[in-house]
Protein backbone atom coordinates (compact mmCIF):
# COMPACT_ATOMS: atom_id res chain seq x y z
CA UNK A 1 0.00 0.00 0.00
CA UNK A 2 2.79 2.40 0.90
CA UNK A 3 4.48 1.84 -2.45
CA UNK A 4 1.28 2.57 -4.27
CA UNK A 5 0.80 5.83 -2.41
CA UNK A 6 4.37 6.90 -3.10
CA UNK A 7 4.06 6.11 -6.76
CA UNK A 8 0.89 8.16 -6.98
CA UNK A 9 2.50 11.05 -5.19
CA UNK A 10 5.50 10.93 -7.52
CA UNK A 11 3.27 11.05 -10.54
CA UNK A 12 1.69 14.30 -9.38
CA UNK A 13 3.76 16.78 -11.37
CA UNK A 14 5.77 14.90 -13.97
CA UNK A 15 7.93 16.48 -16.63
CA UNK A 16 5.04 16.33 -19.13
CA UNK A 17 3.17 18.85 -17.03
CA UNK A 18 6.09 21.23 -17.06
CA UNK A 19 6.17 20.92 -20.83
CA UNK A 20 2.45 21.58 -21.01
CA UNK A 21 2.85 24.63 -18.82
CA UNK A 22 5.40 25.93 -21.27
CA UNK A 23 3.06 25.34 -24.21
CA UNK A 24 0.21 27.17 -22.55
CA UNK A 25 2.53 29.98 -21.56
CA UNK A 26 3.72 30.31 -25.14
CA UNK A 27 0.32 31.70 -25.96
CA UNK A 28 1.96 34.77 -24.43
CA UNK A 29 -0.80 36.15 -22.28
CA UNK A 30 -0.54 39.92 -22.27
CA UNK A 31 -0.42 41.63 -18.90
CA UNK A 32 -0.02 45.37 -19.11
CA UNK A 33 3.02 46.07 -21.22
CA UNK A 34 4.65 42.78 -20.34
CA UNK A 35 4.20 39.24 -21.52
CA UNK A 36 4.25 36.13 -19.43
CA UNK A 37 7.03 34.16 -21.05
CA UNK A 38 7.38 30.41 -21.26
CA UNK A 39 10.57 30.76 -19.23
CA UNK A 40 8.86 32.46 -16.35
CA UNK A 41 6.06 29.90 -16.17
CA UNK A 42 8.63 27.13 -16.46
CA UNK A 43 10.57 28.58 -13.56
CA UNK A 44 7.52 28.35 -11.32
CA UNK A 45 6.73 24.80 -12.36
CA UNK A 46 10.39 23.93 -11.79
CA UNK A 47 10.05 25.13 -8.19
CA UNK A 48 7.01 22.88 -7.80
CA UNK A 49 8.98 19.91 -9.13
CA UNK A 50 11.81 20.72 -6.71
CA UNK A 51 9.50 20.85 -3.69
CA UNK A 52 7.96 17.54 -4.75
CA UNK A 53 11.45 16.02 -5.10
CA UNK A 54 12.18 17.03 -1.51
CA UNK A 55 8.89 15.51 -0.41
CA UNK A 56 9.31 12.25 -2.34
CA UNK A 57 13.02 11.54 -2.13
CA UNK A 58 14.60 14.05 0.27
CA UNK A 59 16.42 15.41 -2.77
CA UNK A 60 19.27 17.61 -1.55
CA UNK A 61 20.21 19.03 -4.92
CA UNK A 62 16.62 20.20 -5.47
CA UNK A 63 16.79 21.76 -2.01
CA UNK A 64 20.06 23.53 -2.69
CA UNK A 65 18.63 25.03 -5.89
CA UNK A 66 15.59 26.37 -4.04
CA UNK A 67 17.89 27.56 -1.28
CA UNK A 68 20.17 29.46 -3.65
CA UNK A 69 17.22 31.33 -5.13
CA UNK A 70 14.99 31.93 -2.12
CA UNK A 71 17.30 32.27 0.92
CA UNK A 72 18.75 35.66 -0.16
CA UNK A 73 15.21 36.94 -0.78
CA UNK A 74 13.77 35.60 2.46
CA UNK A 75 16.66 37.21 4.35
CA UNK A 76 16.07 40.47 2.53
CA UNK A 77 12.36 40.40 3.41
CA UNK A 78 13.17 39.75 7.09
CA UNK A 79 15.74 42.55 7.22
CA UNK A 80 13.33 44.98 5.61
CA UNK A 81 10.82 43.86 8.25
CA UNK A 82 13.19 45.00 10.99
CA UNK A 83 15.44 42.00 11.72
CA UNK A 84 19.17 42.53 12.28
CA UNK A 85 21.36 40.76 9.68
CA UNK A 86 22.31 38.03 12.19
CA UNK A 87 18.74 37.36 13.25
CA UNK A 88 17.55 37.45 9.65
CA UNK A 89 20.23 34.91 8.71
CA UNK A 90 19.19 32.57 11.52
CA UNK A 91 15.48 32.95 10.68
CA UNK A 92 16.13 32.37 6.98
CA UNK A 93 17.83 29.06 7.72
CA UNK A 94 14.86 28.05 9.87
CA UNK A 95 12.41 29.07 7.15
CA UNK A 96 14.27 26.91 4.62
CA UNK A 97 14.40 23.99 7.08
CA UNK A 98 10.63 24.32 7.53
CA UNK A 99 10.23 24.16 3.75
CA UNK A 100 12.01 20.78 3.91
CA UNK A 101 9.95 19.57 6.87
CA UNK A 102 6.61 20.61 5.40
CA UNK A 103 7.18 19.79 1.73
CA UNK A 104 4.34 17.23 1.95
CA UNK A 105 1.89 20.00 2.81
CA UNK A 106 2.56 22.13 -0.26
CA UNK A 107 -0.33 22.23 -2.76
CA UNK A 108 0.52 23.77 -6.16
CA UNK A 109 -3.20 24.24 -6.96
CA UNK A 110 -3.51 26.60 -4.00
CA UNK A 111 -0.24 28.52 -3.99
CA UNK A 112 2.93 29.24 -5.90
CA UNK A 113 6.14 28.13 -4.15
CA UNK A 114 6.98 31.82 -3.69
CA UNK A 115 3.66 32.38 -1.90
CA UNK A 116 4.17 29.36 0.31
CA UNK A 117 7.72 30.31 1.32
CA UNK A 118 6.52 33.85 2.00
CA UNK A 119 3.88 32.56 4.46
CA UNK A 120 6.52 30.43 6.23
CA UNK A 121 8.78 33.50 6.50
CA UNK A 122 5.86 35.65 7.65
CA UNK A 123 5.02 33.14 10.37
CA UNK A 124 8.62 32.94 11.55
CA UNK A 125 8.72 36.74 11.63
CA UNK A 126 5.71 36.84 14.00
CA UNK A 127 7.15 34.09 16.21
CA UNK A 128 10.70 35.40 16.50
CA UNK A 129 10.64 39.12 15.71
CA UNK A 130 7.32 40.08 17.20
CA UNK A 131 7.28 37.33 19.83
CA UNK A 132 3.52 36.93 19.56
CA UNK A 133 1.21 33.99 19.41
CA UNK A 134 -0.09 33.56 15.90
CA UNK A 135 -3.78 32.68 15.49
CA UNK A 136 -4.31 30.82 12.22
CA UNK A 137 -7.52 29.91 10.40
CA UNK A 138 -8.56 26.30 10.80
CA UNK A 139 -7.36 24.34 7.75
CA UNK A 140 -9.97 22.95 5.42
CA UNK A 141 -9.85 19.19 5.81
CA UNK A 142 -8.92 17.40 2.62
CA UNK A 143 -11.73 15.36 1.12
CA UNK A 144 -11.10 12.05 -0.63
CA UNK A 145 -11.05 13.65 -4.10
CA UNK A 146 -9.14 16.74 -3.19
CA UNK A 147 -5.89 15.65 -4.87
CA UNK A 148 -4.51 18.75 -6.61
CA UNK A 149 -5.66 18.94 -10.20
CA UNK A 150 -2.77 19.35 -12.61
CA UNK A 151 -4.44 21.87 -14.90
CA UNK A 152 -5.41 23.93 -11.89
CA UNK A 153 -1.88 23.77 -10.54
CA UNK A 154 -0.49 25.03 -13.84
CA UNK A 155 -3.14 27.73 -14.03
CA UNK A 156 -2.38 28.96 -10.55
CA UNK A 157 1.37 29.05 -11.17
CA UNK A 158 0.86 31.08 -14.34
CA UNK A 159 -1.55 33.48 -12.77
CA UNK A 160 0.79 34.12 -9.86
CA UNK A 161 3.45 34.93 -12.43
CA UNK A 162 1.00 37.33 -14.09
CA UNK A 163 0.25 38.91 -10.73
CA UNK A 164 3.96 39.52 -10.19
CA UNK A 165 4.28 41.13 -13.62
CA UNK A 166 1.19 43.26 -13.09
CA UNK A 167 2.56 44.44 -9.76
CA UNK A 168 5.85 45.34 -11.42
CA UNK A 169 3.90 47.43 -13.93
CA UNK A 170 2.16 49.52 -11.24
CA UNK A 171 3.10 53.17 -10.85
CA UNK A 172 6.14 53.47 -8.56
CA UNK A 173 4.29 55.26 -5.81
CA UNK A 174 1.56 52.63 -5.56
CA UNK A 175 4.05 49.75 -5.65
CA UNK A 176 6.13 51.34 -2.90
CA UNK A 177 3.06 51.65 -0.68
CA UNK A 178 2.28 47.96 -1.12
CA UNK A 179 5.87 47.03 -0.29
CA UNK A 180 5.81 49.23 2.81
CA UNK A 181 2.63 47.53 3.98
CA UNK A 182 4.28 44.11 3.68
CA UNK A 183 7.51 45.22 5.35
CA UNK A 184 5.49 46.49 8.31
CA UNK A 185 6.09 50.19 7.72
CA UNK A 186 2.36 50.87 7.47
CA UNK A 187 -0.21 49.94 10.08
CA UNK A 188 -3.59 48.60 8.97
CA UNK A 189 -5.13 52.04 9.51
CA UNK A 190 -2.52 53.56 7.18
CA UNK A 191 -3.23 51.12 4.35
CA UNK A 192 -5.65 52.57 1.80
CA UNK A 193 -9.19 51.18 1.98
CA UNK A 194 -8.92 50.30 -1.72
CA UNK A 195 -5.43 49.04 -2.46
CA UNK A 196 -6.03 48.88 -6.21
CA UNK A 197 -4.01 45.66 -6.45
CA UNK A 198 -4.12 43.93 -9.85
CA UNK A 199 -5.50 40.67 -8.48
CA UNK A 200 -7.16 39.87 -11.80
CA UNK A 201 -7.54 36.23 -12.73
CA UNK A 202 -5.83 34.82 -9.64
CA UNK A 203 -8.97 35.80 -7.75
CA UNK A 204 -11.25 33.45 -9.67
CA UNK A 205 -8.59 30.72 -9.76
CA UNK A 206 -8.22 30.66 -6.00
CA UNK A 207 -11.99 30.71 -5.48
CA UNK A 208 -12.37 27.82 -7.89
CA UNK A 209 -9.81 25.75 -5.98
CA UNK A 210 -11.61 26.45 -2.69
CA UNK A 211 -15.02 25.60 -4.13
CA UNK A 212 -13.67 22.30 -5.40
CA UNK A 213 -12.29 21.55 -1.96
CA UNK A 214 -15.61 22.37 -0.31
CA UNK A 215 -17.42 20.25 -2.86
CA UNK A 216 -15.11 17.28 -2.23
CA UNK A 217 -15.83 17.50 1.49
CA UNK A 218 -19.57 17.03 1.12
Amino acid sequence: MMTETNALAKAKVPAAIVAKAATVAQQNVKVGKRKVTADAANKRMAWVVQVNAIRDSQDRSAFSELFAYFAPRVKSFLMKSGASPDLAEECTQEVMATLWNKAHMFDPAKASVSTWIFTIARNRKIDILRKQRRPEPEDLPWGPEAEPDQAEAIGLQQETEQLGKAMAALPDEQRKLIERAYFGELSHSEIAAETGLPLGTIKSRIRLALDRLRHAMK
Partner: protein
Amino acid sequence: MMNDMKQIKHHLTEPLLMGYAAGTLPEAFNLVVATHITMCDTCRAALAEYEAVGGEVMLDAEPVDIAEDALAATLAKIDGGLVKETPHPARKADSVFPGPLQDYVSGEIDSLKWRKVGGGVSQLVLKTSKDASVRLLRIPAGTAVPDHGHRGTELTLVLQGAFTDEEDRFGTGDVEVANEDLHHKPVAEKGMDCICLAATDAPLRFNGLVPRIAQRFIGI
Protein backbone atom coordinates in the same frame (compact mmCIF):
# COMPACT_ATOMS: atom_id res chain seq x y z
CA MET B 1 -21.95 26.53 11.75
CA MET B 2 -19.24 26.75 9.11
CA ASN B 3 -21.56 25.78 6.32
CA ASP B 4 -23.89 28.74 6.60
CA MET B 5 -21.20 30.95 5.11
CA LYS B 6 -23.52 31.98 2.29
CA GLN B 7 -25.33 34.06 4.87
CA ILE B 8 -22.22 36.07 5.73
CA LYS B 9 -22.71 39.59 4.40
CA HIS B 10 -20.11 41.61 6.25
CA HIS B 11 -16.51 40.79 5.48
CA LEU B 12 -12.99 41.83 6.40
CA THR B 13 -11.58 44.95 4.75
CA GLU B 14 -8.62 44.99 2.35
CA PRO B 15 -6.27 46.65 4.88
CA LEU B 16 -7.05 43.95 7.45
CA LEU B 17 -6.55 41.11 4.99
CA MET B 18 -3.32 42.68 3.78
CA GLY B 19 -2.15 43.28 7.35
CA TYR B 20 -2.87 39.68 8.30
CA ALA B 21 -1.10 38.39 5.16
CA ALA B 22 1.89 40.62 5.91
CA GLY B 23 2.00 39.56 9.55
CA THR B 24 1.83 43.12 10.84
CA LEU B 25 -1.48 43.22 12.76
CA PRO B 26 -1.69 43.15 16.54
CA GLU B 27 -2.32 39.66 17.92
CA ALA B 28 -5.85 40.63 19.01
CA PHE B 29 -6.75 41.56 15.42
CA ASN B 30 -5.09 38.44 14.04
CA LEU B 31 -7.36 36.41 16.31
CA VAL B 32 -10.51 38.06 14.93
CA VAL B 33 -9.27 37.72 11.34
CA ALA B 34 -8.31 34.04 11.73
CA THR B 35 -11.63 33.26 13.42
CA HIS B 36 -13.67 35.00 10.72
CA ILE B 37 -11.73 33.26 7.94
CA THR B 38 -12.43 29.91 9.57
CA MET B 39 -16.14 30.74 9.09
CA CYS B 40 -15.94 32.56 5.71
CA ASP B 41 -14.66 31.14 2.42
CA THR B 42 -14.90 34.50 0.67
CA CYS B 43 -12.29 35.96 3.01
CA ARG B 44 -10.28 32.72 3.04
CA ALA B 45 -9.88 33.06 -0.73
CA ALA B 46 -9.15 36.78 -0.44
CA LEU B 47 -6.41 36.08 2.11
CA ALA B 48 -4.77 33.64 -0.32
CA GLU B 49 -4.65 36.49 -2.85
CA TYR B 50 -2.94 38.84 -0.40
CA GLU B 51 -0.48 36.11 0.52
CA ALA B 52 0.32 35.69 -3.17
CA VAL B 53 0.98 39.44 -3.30
CA GLY B 54 3.34 39.02 -0.32
CA GLY B 55 5.20 36.26 -2.16
CA GLU B 56 5.72 38.56 -5.13
CA VAL B 57 6.88 41.42 -2.90
CA MET B 58 9.41 39.01 -1.36
CA LEU B 59 10.57 37.85 -4.80
CA ASP B 60 11.17 41.45 -5.81
CA ALA B 61 13.10 42.33 -2.67
CA GLU B 62 16.74 43.04 -3.50
CA PRO B 63 18.53 39.74 -2.67
CA VAL B 64 21.11 40.09 0.13
CA ASP B 65 24.22 38.02 0.81
CA ILE B 66 23.75 34.99 2.98
CA ALA B 67 26.41 33.33 5.11
CA GLU B 68 28.86 31.22 3.13
CA ASP B 69 28.02 28.11 5.12
CA ALA B 70 24.26 28.85 5.20
CA LEU B 71 23.22 25.85 3.12
CA ALA B 72 25.41 23.44 5.12
CA ALA B 73 24.15 24.96 8.38
CA THR B 74 20.55 24.56 7.24
CA LEU B 75 21.07 20.95 6.19
CA ALA B 76 22.63 20.31 9.62
CA LYS B 77 19.53 21.81 11.24
CA ILE B 78 17.36 19.52 9.12
CA ASP B 79 19.42 16.42 9.87
CA GLY B 80 19.50 17.21 13.57
CA GLY B 81 15.75 17.84 13.67
CA LEU B 82 16.57 21.20 15.21
CA VAL B 83 13.69 23.14 13.67
CA LYS B 84 10.53 21.90 15.33
CA GLU B 85 7.17 22.44 13.67
CA THR B 86 4.38 23.06 16.14
CA PRO B 87 1.57 20.57 15.59
CA HIS B 88 -1.99 21.82 15.33
CA PRO B 89 -3.74 21.38 18.67
CA ALA B 90 -6.78 19.12 18.73
CA ARG B 91 -9.95 21.13 18.28
CA LYS B 92 -13.62 20.49 18.86
CA ALA B 93 -15.90 20.68 15.82
CA ASP B 94 -19.14 21.31 17.71
CA SER B 95 -18.02 24.37 19.69
CA VAL B 96 -19.51 27.83 19.25
CA PHE B 97 -15.85 28.93 19.27
CA PRO B 98 -14.13 28.24 15.93
CA GLY B 99 -10.67 26.57 15.98
CA PRO B 100 -8.36 29.58 16.41
CA LEU B 101 -10.47 30.88 19.29
CA GLN B 102 -10.34 27.55 21.13
CA ASP B 103 -6.63 28.18 21.70
CA TYR B 104 -7.57 31.27 23.74
CA VAL B 105 -10.75 30.15 25.49
CA SER B 106 -10.94 27.04 27.61
CA GLY B 107 -14.55 26.00 27.96
CA GLU B 108 -17.94 26.72 26.48
CA ILE B 109 -20.32 29.65 26.89
CA ASP B 110 -21.88 28.53 30.15
CA SER B 111 -18.65 27.42 31.83
CA LEU B 112 -16.62 30.61 31.26
CA LYS B 113 -15.89 33.18 33.95
CA TRP B 114 -17.87 36.09 32.53
CA ARG B 115 -17.66 39.48 34.23
CA LYS B 116 -20.67 41.78 34.20
CA VAL B 117 -20.17 45.15 32.50
CA GLY B 118 -23.64 46.58 33.12
CA GLY B 119 -27.01 46.40 31.43
CA GLY B 120 -26.91 42.60 31.54
CA VAL B 121 -23.91 42.50 29.21
CA SER B 122 -20.88 40.48 30.30
CA GLN B 123 -17.38 40.09 28.94
CA LEU B 124 -14.30 37.93 29.08
CA VAL B 125 -11.00 39.59 28.21
CA LEU B 126 -8.60 37.26 26.38
CA LYS B 127 -4.87 37.36 26.90
CA THR B 128 -2.96 38.77 23.92
CA SER B 129 -0.05 41.13 23.27
CA LYS B 130 -0.62 44.64 24.61
CA ASP B 131 -0.80 46.57 21.31
CA ALA B 132 -4.55 45.85 21.13
CA SER B 133 -7.13 44.00 23.20
CA VAL B 134 -9.79 41.42 22.48
CA ARG B 135 -12.75 40.18 24.49
CA LEU B 136 -15.76 37.97 24.23
CA LEU B 137 -19.04 39.79 24.76
CA ARG B 138 -22.25 38.14 25.85
CA ILE B 139 -25.27 40.28 25.12
CA PRO B 140 -28.59 38.89 26.37
CA ALA B 141 -31.29 38.61 23.69
CA GLY B 142 -32.99 41.96 23.16
CA THR B 143 -30.38 43.90 25.16
CA ALA B 144 -28.31 46.90 24.04
CA VAL B 145 -24.59 47.40 24.59
CA PRO B 146 -23.97 50.90 26.02
CA ASP B 147 -23.54 53.52 23.26
CA HIS B 148 -19.85 53.92 22.55
CA GLY B 149 -17.43 55.48 20.11
CA HIS B 150 -13.86 54.58 19.25
CA ARG B 151 -10.52 56.23 19.04
CA GLY B 152 -9.03 53.46 16.95
CA THR B 153 -10.50 50.55 15.03
CA GLU B 154 -12.94 48.09 16.54
CA LEU B 155 -13.66 44.69 14.99
CA THR B 156 -16.77 42.87 16.15
CA LEU B 157 -17.32 39.31 14.95
CA VAL B 158 -20.61 37.57 15.70
CA LEU B 159 -20.14 33.98 16.90
CA GLN B 160 -23.73 33.27 17.86
CA GLY B 161 -27.04 35.11 17.41
CA ALA B 162 -27.14 38.53 15.80
CA PHE B 163 -27.10 42.23 16.60
CA THR B 164 -28.37 45.32 14.86
CA ASP B 165 -26.92 48.82 15.05
CA GLU B 166 -27.23 52.08 13.12
CA GLU B 167 -25.30 50.50 10.25
CA ASP B 168 -27.00 47.19 9.60
CA ARG B 169 -27.86 43.75 10.94
CA PHE B 170 -24.91 41.51 11.80
CA GLY B 171 -25.57 37.77 11.93
CA THR B 172 -23.39 34.81 12.82
CA GLY B 173 -20.07 35.02 10.97
CA ASP B 174 -20.48 38.71 10.08
CA VAL B 175 -17.74 41.09 11.14
CA GLU B 176 -18.26 44.80 11.68
CA VAL B 177 -15.22 47.01 11.15
CA ALA B 178 -15.85 50.30 12.95
CA ASN B 179 -13.55 53.30 12.84
CA GLU B 180 -13.56 56.36 15.04
CA ASP B 181 -16.44 58.03 13.17
CA LEU B 182 -18.92 55.44 14.29
CA HIS B 183 -20.83 55.84 17.52
CA HIS B 184 -22.88 52.73 17.66
CA LYS B 185 -25.29 51.04 19.95
CA PRO B 186 -25.54 47.35 19.08
CA VAL B 187 -28.77 45.65 20.16
CA ALA B 188 -28.88 41.86 20.36
CA GLU B 189 -31.75 40.24 18.49
CA LYS B 190 -34.51 38.56 20.40
CA GLY B 191 -34.51 34.81 20.73
CA MET B 192 -30.89 34.06 21.54
CA ASP B 193 -28.00 35.61 23.46
CA CYS B 194 -25.55 37.23 21.11
CA ILE B 195 -21.92 36.17 21.54
CA CYS B 196 -19.32 38.40 19.90
CA LEU B 197 -15.55 38.53 19.64
CA ALA B 198 -14.52 42.18 19.76
CA ALA B 199 -11.03 43.62 19.29
CA THR B 200 -9.89 47.20 19.54
CA ASP B 201 -6.54 48.95 19.23
CA ALA B 202 -7.61 51.84 21.48
CA PRO B 203 -9.91 52.05 24.51
CA LEU B 204 -13.62 52.35 23.72
CA ARG B 205 -15.29 55.64 24.57
CA PHE B 206 -18.70 55.37 26.14
CA ASN B 207 -21.12 58.26 25.80
CA GLY B 208 -22.79 59.35 29.01
CA LEU B 209 -21.44 59.69 32.52
CA VAL B 210 -22.43 56.39 34.07
CA PRO B 211 -20.89 54.16 31.42
CA ARG B 212 -17.75 56.32 31.51
CA ILE B 213 -17.36 55.74 35.24
CA ALA B 214 -18.10 52.06 34.78
CA GLN B 215 -15.46 51.95 32.06
CA ARG B 216 -12.76 52.90 34.56
CA PHE B 217 -13.60 49.87 36.62
CA ILE B 218 -14.15 47.32 33.93
CA GLY B 219 -11.39 48.45 31.64
CA ILE B 220 -13.07 48.30 28.27
